């Protein structure tokens, strides 16, 4: 037993190499940021980074599960646009509408995600195509609903984005709890293990009689639910939803997942890496802001980070 322990430890380290690299990068960036600006070092800036990463963390969490099964959810951007526009459009400034609308939005997100899952199962078309098609359909629907910002929310609604518990931003605390719960689910729940099994070897999983349909409905439903959470958070932060709110979230949600070491071919990775990826991306944007780099170059940086990340983790298996 004792002889086995070092081997297991080293193989574990190798598997988590990517996560260690990301963690190291985080530390380096923090030191670098502290050197370039005094304002970077303040507690309020650090809390600011946590606060700004909430939306990205929520959508990336759902994306991680979809990618773990070897699939992808390209409909997240349009779904966030649709759901956030509906949030402020339906609340229309009335305090009494906040709770019913919020619940309705989460259910709608779940439902759209389940539709993705059902189409993937029934049509046997790759998730990439199903969710790409769904993305166009949802974008069309939100533009039919409104061509610009719709409705409004009561001032107290921004509590979700800017409120604090014990001095910490609500969103950031919620994220930590949610990620922990999902990590526990992936590690200990039977369905959680099936997600890895389906992503690792789909044919093998089918031959073993694993419930692929249930796995697909769970991950795409959950991704839709996460989009609902993101939409509500973003509406709270910007106090109104508009039809292009989610435009950049499709690629943005994939970036932290691949940076965190989850393979696009499925079966390997986890939500912890994604969370580090989210913080890394937010930190990079924050540092670039302090360096007065224009948003154009931030776009280039984002693309280059993706390219760098996917080139480092070489995938040996099938391609999407």
């Amino acid at each position: 037993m004792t002889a086995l322990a070092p081997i297991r430890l080293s193989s574990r380290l190798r598997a988590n190499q990517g996560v260690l690299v990301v963690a190291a990068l985080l530390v380096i960036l923090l030191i670098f940021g502290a050197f370039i600006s005094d304002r970077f070092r303040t507690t309020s800036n650090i809390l600011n980074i946590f606060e700004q990463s909430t939306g990205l963390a929520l959508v990336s969490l759902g994306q991680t599960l979809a990618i773990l099964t070897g699939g992808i959810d390209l409909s997240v951007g349009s779904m966030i646009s649709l759901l956030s526009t509906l949030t402020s459009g339906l609340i229309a400034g009335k305090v009494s509408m906040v709770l019913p609308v919020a619940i309705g939005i989460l259910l709608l997100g779940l439902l759209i995600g389940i539709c993705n899952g059902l189409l993937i199962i029934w049509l046997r078309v790759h998730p990439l195509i199903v969710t790409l098609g769904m993305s166009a359909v949802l974008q069309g629907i939100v533009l039919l609903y409104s061509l610009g910002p719709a409705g409004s929310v009561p001032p107290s609604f921004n509590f979700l984005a800017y409120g604090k518990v014990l001095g910490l931003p609500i969103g950031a605390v919620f994220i930590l709890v949610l990620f922990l719960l999902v990590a526990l689910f992936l590690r200990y729940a039977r369905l959680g293990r099936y997600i890895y099994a389906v992503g690792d070897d789909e044919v093998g999983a089918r031959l073993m009689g694993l419930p692929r349909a249930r796995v697909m409905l769970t991950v795409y439903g959950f991704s839709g639910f996460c989009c609902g959470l993101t939409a509500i958070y973003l509406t709270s932060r910007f106090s109104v939803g508009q039809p292009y709110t989610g435009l950049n979230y499709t690629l943005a949600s994939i970036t932290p997942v691949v940076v965190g070491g989850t393979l696009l071919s499925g079966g390997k990775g986890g939500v912890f890496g994604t969370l580090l990826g989210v913080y890394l991306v937010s930190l990079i944007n924050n540092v670039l802001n302090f360096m007065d780099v224009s948003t154009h170059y931030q776009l280039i940086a984002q693309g280059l980070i993706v390219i760098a990340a996917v080139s480092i983790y070489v995938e040996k298996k099938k391609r999407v």
Partner: protein
Amino acid sequence: MVDVSQASGAEGPAISMRSRLSPYALPIFLIALIAVSGIVSPAFLSTSNISNMLLQVAPLGIVVIGQAFVIILRGLDLSVSSVMATAAVIATGFSGQNSDVLSILLIAVGIGIATGLVNGWLVTKRSVSPFLATLATMIVLQGFRFAYTQGAPSGNVPPLFRLIGSATWHGVPYNMMLLVVLAIVFGVVLAKSRFGREVYITGGSPTTARLLGINADRVTIIGYVISGALAAIAGLVLSGYVGIVDNWVGRGFELDSIVAAVMGGISLSGGQGGILGGLFGAAILVVVFNAVLLFGLPVQLQIIIKGMVIVLAAAFYVRRRI
């Protein structure tokens, strides 16, 4: 040499019926669509509307030719729209005179080729999934474009591009002639040349390609380069059609070209389909978009239809496995 038609004939009787029907399905569907649209709205068949539709087919068709190579190679290219917009921005970046046409063409196609090389390198040498590789290059190129134009491109498109993009010769648009020439050249390359056969084999079965001694990586990289170069040409043609250029010329063409190709029977699982089918797909898409406008339906329906068509078309052509 390996005969590709034999290779695809080995699929078994289950799909041979469908594959025997599909060459006729597209033209019949297109004609039926035109007939129905003409009956519902007589304005659809007016000379001006038809020549307008022909003008719109060409830019999309040119992109579809390149997309066909990439999809047959089991990939897909999302960076085409970004390449198109960059080419269009370049077209207005000079004096706006015909004397600059050659430099514009060289720079734009050069950018297209460079993008294709990066895409191809990522997909083959680094095993990045095609959609992520091309999505990333799309974003990077977009960032460079914004930085170059500082958000607001200005300047004029040279008259020659205006002529090719929007003028007609006895009712036939010049850009349609360009499309036909490109379609014949690349159609012959794909269907008749040794390189074309290697494209089908590499896309159909990478293992077979390796066993036959085909340099699959090289073939794939060339496929992405063709797609990038053609997207640049399509961007120049489109800049001539719209006349004024903003940062988003060609927006939506990445999805449109994939929808057209898939609708035209170019399977996303690789190794199947041809350029003619893709062009029929492009024509059908343009007719549907035009009909939506002519029937007075909301423009947003175009996007919704696009989304549904790509899923249904992919489901129609899906290869049943296991």
